[in-house]
């Protein structure tokens, strides 16, 4: 079982794999791209780039703070510096370096956090990035991207690497359903409507986009028309898409594989509150650490399911 299966979506690569493939492909024609690794390149998928371009790949060992600082120095010399680690280690261990050495000077460092969310499963809470989006959004001037499938991750990686400035890309370990089998128009800061609907809007990113599609499929069966927006960019948030959703569907459910605090839900709610406050509900991890287990068992136990989205949407539409 995987999210999207109930709606007929095929299973594709994990977003971390799509990132690694896109980085490798772009590296050939872009000699300014350099990669700094904290000895997890075979997990975050920067390894193929490092093998193809050893002269501009640097593994500084298990030292995230140094890794980010070295990337800042490379970027200050005109490189497009890519650093990656597990989302929790990158954001939590090297946060001051991301703040002072990268965000404050506005350097062209792309930091990529893999193993995001609780769907990494068996390795347990110490390896799960559940607060990374909140932390990344709290870095002034940093753009934050959470793609949902391999297709959009490849596009997001390309867009990120070709635009100057500090950005965070969040990737996942689990294989993800192919939301965009026919490609997609990806633009940083612009949500993609993946299902049309006019009773309620489900705004999601990452793995929860496929869950939202499954929820929309079920809601349709129950006679409720749900719009699904892939809000892949959390900052800057697409206020136009939120305004249209509020105006045209009158209720919004936000679903994300992240703590309640400071993630996509907070960003959408802040925009909706200002533009057009409509009833909202939130599907997320809440305020807790998870535990070891299988990916979909964990998602169910911690309430990140299509059924939870369906319940939230039904409650809103019955108000």
């Amino acid at each position: 079982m995987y999210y999207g299966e109930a709606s007929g979506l095929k299973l594709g690569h994990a977003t971390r794999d799509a990132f690694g493939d896109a980085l490798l492909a772009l590296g050939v024609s872009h000699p300014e791209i350099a990669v700094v690794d904290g000895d997890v390149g075979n997990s975050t998928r920067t390894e193929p780039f490092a093998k193809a371009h050893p002269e501009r790949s640097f593994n500084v060992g298990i030292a995230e703070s140094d890794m980010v600082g070295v990337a800042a120095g490379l970027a200050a010399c005109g490189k497009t510096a890519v650093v990656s680690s597990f989302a929790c280690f990158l954001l939590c261990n090297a946060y001051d370096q991301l703040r002072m050495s990268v965000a404050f000077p506005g350097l062209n460092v792309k930091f990529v956090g893999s193993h995001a969310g609780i769907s990494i499963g068996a390795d347990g809470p110490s390896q799960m990035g559940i607060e990374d989006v909140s932390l990344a959004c709290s870095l002034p001037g940093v753009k934050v991207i959470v793609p949902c499938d391999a297709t959009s991750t490849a596009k997001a990686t390309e867009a990120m690497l070709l635009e100057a400035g500090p950005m965070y890309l969040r990737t996942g370990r689990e294989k993800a359903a192919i939301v965009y089998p026919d490609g997609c128009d990806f633009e940083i800061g612009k949500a993609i409507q993946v299902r049309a609907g006019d009773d309620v809007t489900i705004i999601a990113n990452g793995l929860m986009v496929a869950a939202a599609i499954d929820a929309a499929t079920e809601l349709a069966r129950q006679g409720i028309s749900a719009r699904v927006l892939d809000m892949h960019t959390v900052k800057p948030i697409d206020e136009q898409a939120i305004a249209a959703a509020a105006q045209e569907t009158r209720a919004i459910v936000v679903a994300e594989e992240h703590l309640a605090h400071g993630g996509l839900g907070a960003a959408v709610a802040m925009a909706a509150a200002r533009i057009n406050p409509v009833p909202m509900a939130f599907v997320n991890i809440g305020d807790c650490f998870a535990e070891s287990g299988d990916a979909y068992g964990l998602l169910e136990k911690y309430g990140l399911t299509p059924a939870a989205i369906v319940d939230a949407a039904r409650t809103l539409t019955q108000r």
Partner: protein
Amino acid sequence: MANEAKRLNVDELKNMARVLREHIVRMTTAAGSGHPTSSMSAVEIVTALYFGGLMKYNPQEPHWPGRDRFILSKGHAVPVLYAAMAEAGYFSVDELKTLRQLGSPLEGHPNMRRLPGIEASTGSLGQGLSIGVGHALATRLDKTGSHVYVVMGDGELGEGQVWEAVATAHKYKLSNLTAIVDQNGFQQTGATHDVLDLTPVADKFAAFGWHTQTIEGNQIEPVLSAFDTALKVTDGPTVIVAKTKKGFGILPILEEEHDMNYHGKPLSPALAEKALALLAQN
């Protein structure tokens, strides 16, 4: 684009060191805050690099790719850097009096986004050496012939990131990187040997595979000579442990005030007058 660095003889360098100290006193007293004594211990290091014919730079083209890099990891000592940059021609000496004022690019700690010629935004201690490693790797990759100088405080060595960067610099055999430890023996709340004793500093770097030199850091001749030696090294990074005095140049005043640390506070206008008179005698 080419190197436009000033090159002074030893007597002129000693005079320049005095001028920088006068600037440090004047600008921090005018600002009413800042770290004059932390700045003063590093004066000979900065003077030698900017005016001793060591560093390549061009104030008219601050981003010239062939320039050498100066990274002040102990960002609170930035008055010494602003003073040197003004004397080098990056901006007017008159602008020094805007230190820490609203609208001035001469912020309390270095901000590379606002002041061309500043190579790294620092102020959170322990981050400059990693940034320097990045510069050294990038300029070596691009074959610009640049040398990277990173000045750290001895208190700052308590940050674990410093030692991560020390290991990385050795791994990549960065002979175009020279670290300078401004070992003035004090940090915010007291003497470094009381707060966190990391001596012998040179031995610790040597254990990581670095070339090391330990010198008297408030005398221009040994500072010049140490940099000459560092530039001749071809197989790895060098550290210069510069034994300095916090507030060197106005030590009698700190003695009178019974505060040889005098951390993070400017001289009062009256003490500044005394300090300037003292510096004028040298």
